[in-house]
């Protein structure tokens, strides 16, 4: 055999798989990879469709009156959802005021002291709590607040939202506090600071930006919840800021207006939905930016 021919024939250990099998494997590889790319495309598509329709249908009714005017009776065009927007801010604000201190404390506990069986149980229970359907939370708030008070109230809605906000706040806080390097704690303790001071004055400030962002994300999510408000805050067509009375909220308003057989109301439901999405995403976006600026300084 000439040296050239020797170089041409493959050595004995090279793959002897029949050509057809090799082709089939190569083709299957292409098909599988293609299918994965296609799947990712198909998953992105609905978001594009939903956001597209939301903007297209909602933008038409988006004007100043929508934010400053009260809802008009059926048949009268125009009007806005001023009471529902303010109502949502109130109900969510009260809920956040209850959920944030509790949730952040619990999260700090889990991150700083959470080693024993108790902490594991808290973690597990938090996971369980985050799986409870929001409509069930609504039923619970109805039994806990509405029945004893004898009427639907904004406060009952806040209680329901508090329960929904807690698990994500707890989990996010634990994550963020854990990210603080161990050396910070060691340095503080070595300088003679007691543990509580270490946590309170060294660890928490270092984790603040993350905790704020993640918690506000949880608050913003809860602001979009409808089901737990249906039979707690109920809704109100009039201006009311009293938390012990039924109060209008944006999600419930959208639901009622979307179900109604009037095209004008349906249009306003779209606008309301757009405003709700803007509210939810803008809150978290704005917070993310301000927090970043504060941290960079």
């Amino acid at each position, binding site marked *: 055999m000439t040296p050239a021919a020797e170089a041409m024939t493959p050595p004995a250990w090279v793959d002897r798989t029949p050509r057809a099998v090799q082709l089939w494997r190569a083709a299957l590889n292409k098909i599988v990879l293609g299918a994965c790319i296609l799947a990712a495309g198909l998953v992105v598509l609905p978001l594009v469709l939903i956001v597209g329709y939301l903007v297209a249908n909602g933008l038409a009714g988006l004007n100043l009156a929508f934010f400053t005017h009260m809802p008009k009776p059926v048949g009268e065009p125009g009007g806005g959802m001023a009471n529902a927007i303010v109502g949502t801010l109130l109900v969510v604000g009260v809920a956040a005021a209850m959920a944030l201190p509790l*949730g952040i404390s619990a999260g700090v506990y889990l991150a700083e002291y959470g080693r024993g069986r108790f902490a594991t149980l808290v973690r597990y229970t938090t996971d369980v709590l985050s799986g409870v359907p929001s*409509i069930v939370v609504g039923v619970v708030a109805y039994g806990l607040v509405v029945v004893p008070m004898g009427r639907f109230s904004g406060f009952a809605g806040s209680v329901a939202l508090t329960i929904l906000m807690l698990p994500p706040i707890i989990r996010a806080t634990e994550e963020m506090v854990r990210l603080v390097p161990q050396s910070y704690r060691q340095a503080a303790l070595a300088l003679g600071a007691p543990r509580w001071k270490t946590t309170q004055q060294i660890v928490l400030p270092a984790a603040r930006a993350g905790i704020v962002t993640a918690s506000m994300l949880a608050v913003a999510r809860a602001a979009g919840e409808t089901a737990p408000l249906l*039979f707690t805050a109920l809704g109100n067509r009039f201006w009311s800021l009293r938390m012990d009375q039924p109060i209008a909220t944006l999600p419930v308003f959208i639901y009622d207006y979307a179900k109604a057989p009037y095209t004008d109301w349906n249009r306003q439901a779209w606008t309301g939905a757009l405003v709700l999405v803007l509210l939810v995403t803008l809150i978290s976006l704005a917070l993310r930016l301000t927090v970043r600026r504060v941290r960079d300084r």
Partner: protein
Amino acid sequence: MRRPLPPRRRGPTVDSVYRVVLASAAAVVFVIVALIVVEVAHGSMPSIRALGFGFLIQTQWDPVADHYGALPYLYGTLVSSILALILAVPLGLGSAVFLAELAKGKVAATVSFVMELLAAIPSIVYGIWGFFVLAPFLRTVLEPWLIANFGYLPLFRGTPFGIGMLNAGIVLAIMIVPTIVSISREVLLAIPRSLREGSLALGATRAEAIGITLDAAKPGILGSIVLALGRALGETMAVTMVIGNTNRISASLLDPSATMASVIANEFTEATGALYLSALIQIALVLFAVTIVVNALARGLVWLTTGGRRDIAAAA
């Protein structure tokens, strides 16, 4: 010379008080779960006493005669959720593989961002979209086509309403896909690289290497699917808007139906009788029990594959 240690302080120190305060905040989650259980169980007592186990297997739901059977709602919840899984699992898994194994840099970041956005949209917005956009499309395009081509199957028989089981299944699928994608992706990334590299070095194609990785990630992926199922079972507003809220069991996916969550959302404020209200609360009890079991199972599966890493559990 060694000086004696200062005497130990008696009584609570600031440190121990601080710790107890934090721990009691953490203990609040037990109180809340206990309150949920007690409240829902207490509220459904009248119904449990009056209707017994028949509640779960009877089909009439008649507030006028004060007779309640929840089977149609159990059926509706189960079928809509399974339909959602059938649609969402292949797409979600494909996307997760795409994100974990194929996509790089900008593309991966964009798709992940879109997933996050999808998860942040309130469910009422999905409902509006399903009601005003998807329903007309189904009524005029997809459902007539299904009837014409697959009408011989009992699944696709009947009138194209647009509103019904199929619509609910599609909307639910869109809503649960981010859960499947984000957790499966994390699970896939947690599988050691050496497994992938080893199979590639032995001459496997990329698809075959992905197959090996998927095999190792099976429990975690299953966990993400079960978690998504739990979400679908309890989803309320979007389903309430697109399922038609009709109390009947029908083999056809084109027919309107109702789920446990949707009947509560729809009838709770209108429930006048004590037994009526209690029956609705009992549905909440069943829903609560089912989602707890499903979620416990899912968490266990995800923990199995990822060794209990909190960041992955948090992605849920």
